[in-house]
């Protein structure tokens, strides 16, 4: 062993690489961590509460006698437990997270700070409206930004996520059709649509008919024309679509849709690609949800919460659900019920007024970027995706090689043919390279799809690192290094998880 003059060893004389890894619980900074149910005690608590002044004897046998079964932990134990868990998560703040269709962009911390101002976080949805004028003004301002950016005259703010927004849009369309005595039963959507589109249409009481796709990844206009019968209530199209391509014939889609007496619903999940550069209102769109948690940077939080406001054309505006805001002599008013001026509205989607916490974050983001910055967002997002496509196309196979893509680059698995390696294997191998994998096996129209969305908040060197990693993997696949893929991930907190076993015999909660 080499010893420094001060007596501190500096390096091992052993050949470290040849030594077997010791059997330990966890490794390096990643600790093995049991469930709280295996750590805590029934009497332990991490809060100090005063004694209750009264007992609950007045409730008699309504009182819960049996043990609930909830362990408690002190504050230091709770911190350590959840910090340890957190270190097993990939995150945008850690490295690129190029999940196509999900828009994993940077989440500004100013948004978080603003959402926590007591004036927003500590107000009750049913306190007198005179005491929440700032909240109503914020909702009004958010509505103004969304309407201006989309070129649409109205917006329903309350949907709680993208799929909820789709439901809101289709129910609005349904109400508008019913009002003109023209109940229709069908919604048409491309085969490449997000799963939420057909699921939402079914929930809204519609049959779903699929439209074919052309060889260049767009809606087949001829097929659409055939399927646009008098029973079609709405055409649901994602634009830019789930292949990451702009629907070149969007104006014709709108024209055909309207000529058939139907409404044009646009899935706005990919609005990030065009924000500030293209207004859906100029494309003939009647309704479009906006995922505030995608385009407008509210955090995904491991699966939510989101928010899915829906912008609406003039024809649909009267049928939007309450609540909305009107201006009166004594300030702003929240219209909460389908009466009077809201008599045509289709109903209530949820309790209260939607996702205020997300409204604050989204408006903070919009004001930070401004009209110029938002336009730059779309440009940089599209530039980054095309750069990824250009850098990888020699080694991977682009699903639609001709022409530019929008905010995401789509590859198929033709480049893996004959290697015995699948898209799933590539995704798991990317984990060992330090990246979150791209979206895999979506859209369904492309075999072994790999959908890469870098977003505008990735620095060029990170995009290059990601491309370099994929190119290394492509070389390894060509060289027949199958083990590197099939065994992956090797360096994650856990090795590949058995999802089949989980579904075969579900264990959905801890039991002693």
């Amino acid at each position, binding site marked *: 062993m080499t010893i420094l003059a001060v007596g501190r060893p500096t390096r091992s004389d052993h050949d470290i690489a040849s030594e077997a890894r010791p059997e330990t619980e966890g490794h390096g900074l990643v600790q093995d961590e049991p469930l709280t149910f295996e750590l805590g005690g029934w009497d332990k608590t991490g809060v100090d509460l005063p004694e209750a002044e009264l007992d609950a004897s007045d409730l008699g046998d309504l009182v819960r006698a049996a043990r609930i079964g909830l362990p408690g932990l002190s504050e230091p134990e709770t911190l350590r437990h959840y*910090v340890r868990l957190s270190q097993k998560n990939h995150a945008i703040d850690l490295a690129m997270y190029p999940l196509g269709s999900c828009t994993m962009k940077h989440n500004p911390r100013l948004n978080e700070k603003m959402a926590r101002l007591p004036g927003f976080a500590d107000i009750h*949805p049913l306190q007198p409206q005179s005491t929440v004028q700032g909240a109503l003004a914020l909702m009004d301002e958010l509505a103004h930004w969304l309407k201006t950016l989309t070129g649409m005259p109205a917006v329903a703010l309350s949907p709680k996520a993208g799929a909820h927004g789709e439901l809101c849009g289709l129910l609005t369309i349904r109400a508008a059709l019913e009002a003109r005595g023209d109940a229709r039963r069908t919604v048409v959507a491309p085969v490449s649509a*997000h799963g939420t589109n057909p699921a939402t249409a079914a929930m809204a009481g519609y049959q779903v008919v699929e439209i074919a796709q052309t060889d260049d990844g767009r809606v087949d206009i001829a097929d659409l024309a055939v399927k646009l019968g008098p029973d079609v209530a709405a055409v649901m199209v994602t634009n830019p679509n789930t292949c990451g391509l702009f629907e070149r014939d969007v104006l014709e889609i709108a024209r055909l849709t309207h000529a058939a007496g139907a409404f044009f619903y646009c899935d706005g999940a990919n609005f990030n690609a065009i924000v500030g550069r293209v207004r859906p209102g100029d494309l003939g769109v009647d309704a479009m949800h906006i995922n505030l948690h995608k385009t407008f940077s509210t955090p995904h939080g491991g699966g939510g919460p989101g928010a899915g406001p829906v912008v609406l054309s003039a024809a649909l505006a009267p049928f939007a659900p309450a609540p909305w805001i009107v201006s009166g002599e004594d300030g702003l008013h929240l219209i909460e019920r389908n009466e009077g001026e809201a008599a045509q509205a289709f109903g209530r989607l949820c309790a209260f007024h939607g996702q205020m916490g997300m409204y604050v974050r989204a408006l903070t983001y919009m004001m*930070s970027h401004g009209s110029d910055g938002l*336009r730059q967002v779309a440009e940089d997002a599209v530039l980054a995706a095309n750069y990824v496509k250009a850098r990888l196309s020699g080694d991977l196979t682009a699903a639609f090689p001709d022409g530019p893509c929008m905010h995401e680059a789509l590859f198929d698995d033709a480049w893996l043919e004959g290697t015995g390696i699948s898209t799933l294997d590539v995704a798991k191998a990317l984990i060992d390279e330090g990246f979150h994998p791209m979206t895999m096996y979506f859209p369904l129209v492309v075999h072994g799809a790999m959908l890469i969305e870098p977003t505008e908040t990735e620095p060029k060197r990170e995009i290059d690192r990601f491309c370099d990693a994929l190119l290394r993997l492509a070389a390894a696949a060509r060289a027949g290094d199958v083990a590197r893929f099939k065994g992956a991930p090797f360096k994650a907190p856990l090795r590949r998880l*058995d999802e089949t076993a989980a579904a075969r015999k579900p264990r959905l909660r801890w039991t002693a």
Partner: protein
Amino acid sequence: MRYLPLTPADRSEMLAVIGASSIDALFADVPAAARLAGPVDLPPHQGELEVERAMGRLAARNRPAGSGPFFCGAGAYRHHVPASVDHLIQRSEFLTSYTPYQPEIAQGTLQALFEFQTQVAALTGLPVANASLYDGSTGCAEAVMMAARVTKRSKAVLSGGLHPHYAEACWTLAHTAGVATQRLAAAVDAEAAVIDAIDADTACVVVQTPNVFGTVTDVFAIAEAAHAAGALLVVVTTEAVSFGLLKSPGEMGADIAVAEGQSIGNQLTFGGPYVGLFACREALTRQMPGRLCGETVDAEGKRGFVLTLSTREQHIRREKATSNICTNSGLCALAFTIHMTLLGEAGLRQLAKINHARARLLRDALAAIPGVEVLTPRFFNEFAVRLPRSATAVVNALAADGIIAGVPVARLDPHAGMDDVLLVCATETTAHVDITDFAEALTQELAQ
């Protein structure tokens, strides 16, 4: 622009690699008529300081609940959230991660969801809980649809004690699918009328306890009547802290339990985002909406967690899915889980007792005021009072004096014929002085 890392030099280099002449060339597929020549008519970008000032001005025009005596409940509750909860949910790894589709690098989120599901199952007294829905009201609507699928029947009986917003959200989802919602007359003790409405076409009965008027009911007899008729019982709870004191839905025979989880770990935030709790009997698992987290092992046999039974969900089943839900309330569920872990059973029971005790002090103070009648016979932390005049007018008058007196029933349901009824709530955040200030102000207001 501080959120955009690409420099002009980066952009030029990237365009060169792409082989494009300009950014505009990348937008060539957009019809020329729809390409905006310049920025839309909105203000330009601003620095943090400027945005913070503008948002601060808006926030300052609202009266936070913590700034004075405050008695609103009715589906959203002001509780103290420990500082460590908010710290933990703001960790980058939780805040800035996506739905855990790659489980090997999402064990933090997944294990927390597994803990969440176990906690919700314990609280509701039912064996299976999902990984959250948007909120209690949408969960309630999903429960009605699930019951219709399970029983293949097309009517839901909604108790007159169900929160009106919940009943309306149920109607919205149900009527489009051809499921009728029979909403019974609003009444403080409405649950008694539910059994008579059950018939051979009833898919489910939806009862809330404590109900929107605060009334606590043992719904065991309703469960028996529903089951005898082949219907399911859905029990709704809007105040999750009540699980620490009252019999659980499962103990009383519920098939599906739905709750608003906001009270644990989450702020009021003007109504959202909140977190829907959803639990059911084991036999109904494959008809549940939303994500489920399950236990499994990795290639080396180590325990791990994954999203499972996804053949129920939209990304696999498309139009045949049990629900269209995708994004749910992950981070709110995490806040719930952490707060519940800090509380533990002992803390939750103590917290529930304090809430009940504070509400009884409030009841005693208001009942002593001439003209005020307490209507709710048995309650947890909120109850209804009849005033000698319009509750809305009284609330507005007291708001001018800095007291947020509660929620008029007329705001939730103007057709209930209860314009003089006010819903009031007390929690551990309600100080004794708040109660005496409120009672004094109400006494003076009613004496005028």
